[in-house]
C-alpha cells in the first residue's frame, strides 16, 4: 500500500519521532491537565460569584475567619512553592541530596497547610456552619466555603501524595529530573489556585 509523503509524516509524528513543543508527552499532558483543572476552579469561582451577586449581601469575612491565620496559610503555600522550585532546580543540576531535602520541605509545607485548613474547618463547623446553613445569614455562604476550599484541599492532598512518591523514589535513587519537574508543575498549580481563592473568597 502506497502511503505517500503525508502518511510517512503522520507515522513519524505518532511514532514519537517528533515531540510537540519539544517537551515529553508526560510534561505536555500535565500542562493540559492543569489548563482543564484551572477551568474547574474557574467554574467554581464563577458559581460563587453569581451566588454572591444574586444575594446582594454577603457575610463579612473578617467576622467569620481570622484573617491573620488565612494570611499565614497563604504564606505557607507560597513558601512551599519556593521549596518546590528549588527542588526542581536541584534535580536539573543532578544534586540528589538537595532534591531530597527540598521535596521533604515542600511536603512539610503542604502538611502544615492541610493542618491549618483542618483547624479552620473545624472552627467554622464548631460555630455552626454547614453546607446548607450557617450563623452568618446567607445560606449559600457555607456551601461556597466548603466546596471551594474543600476542592482545593483535596488538590493539596493529591499534591502531597505525588510528592511522597517523588521523595520515596528519590531516596531509592530512582527519580528523574523530569519526574520532579512534573510533580512541581502540579504543586505550583495548587499554589496558583489558592492565589485566586484568597483574593476573591477571603479578601473581597
Amino acid at each position, binding site marked *: 500500500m502506497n502511503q505517500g509523503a503525508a502518511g510517512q509524516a503522520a507515522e513519524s509524528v505518532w511514532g514519537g519521532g517528533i515531540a510537540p513543543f519539544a517537551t515529553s508527552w508526560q510534561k505536555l499532558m500535565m500542562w493540559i491537565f492543569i*489548563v482543564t483543572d484551572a477551568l474547574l476552579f*474557574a467554574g467554581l469561582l464563577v458559581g460563587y*460569584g453569581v451566588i454572591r451577586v444574586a444575594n446582594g449581601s454577603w457575610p463579612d469575612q473578617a467576622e467569620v475567619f481570622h484573617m491573620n491565620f488565612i494570611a499565614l496559610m497563604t504564606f505557607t503555600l507560597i513558601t512551599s512553592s519556593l521549596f518546590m522550585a528549588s527542588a526542581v532546580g536541584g534535580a536539573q543540576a543532578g544534586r540528589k541530596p538537595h532534591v531530597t531535602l527540598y521535596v521533604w520541605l515542600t511536603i512539610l509545607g503542604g502538611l502544615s497547610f492541610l493542618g491549618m485548613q483542618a483547624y479552620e474547618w473545624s472552627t467554622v463547623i464548631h460555630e455552626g456552619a454547614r453546607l446548607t446553613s450557617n450563623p452568618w445569614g446567607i445560606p449559600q455562604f457555607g456551601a461556597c466555603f466548603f466546596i471551594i476550599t474543600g476542592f482545593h484541599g483535596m488538590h493539596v492532598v493529591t499534591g502531597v501524595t505525588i510528592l511522597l512518591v517523588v521523595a520515596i523514589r528519590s531516596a531509592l535513587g530512582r527519580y528523574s529530573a523530569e519526574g520532579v519537574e512534573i510533580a512541581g508543575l502540579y504543586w505550583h498549580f495548587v499554589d496558583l489556585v489558592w492565589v485566586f481563592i484568597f*483574593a476573591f473568597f477571603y479578601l*473581597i
Partner: protein
Amino acid sequence: MSKDSHGYGIYWVVWGILLVLTFVMIVIGEANLGYMMKGALLLVGASAKAGLIIFYFMHLRLEKAGLAVIVLVGIFLTGTLMFALPAYDGSHVFENLLYR
C-alpha cells in the same frame, strides 16, 4: 528545559515579590474602597502573582511559545469568558434586587 534555569536566586526574588503582592492585596482588601475598585485591584494583583508563578516557578518562559499560548489562552481567555457571560446576567439580578 534549557540549562539557564539552574540558579536558585531568582526563586527567592520571585518569592519575595509574591509575599509583597500578598501583603499589598491584604491592605487593599481591608481598605475602604468600592467593590468594583477592590475587585479590579485584586484581579490585577492576583494576575500578577499568577504570572510570576506560571513563568518563573513553572518555567513557562523557557518553553516553546506554542505551549505558552495554549496555557495562557486556555486558562485566561476561557476563564474570562466564563466570568463575563454570567456576570452580565448576575448584574441584572443584582439591579432587580436593588430596585425591588
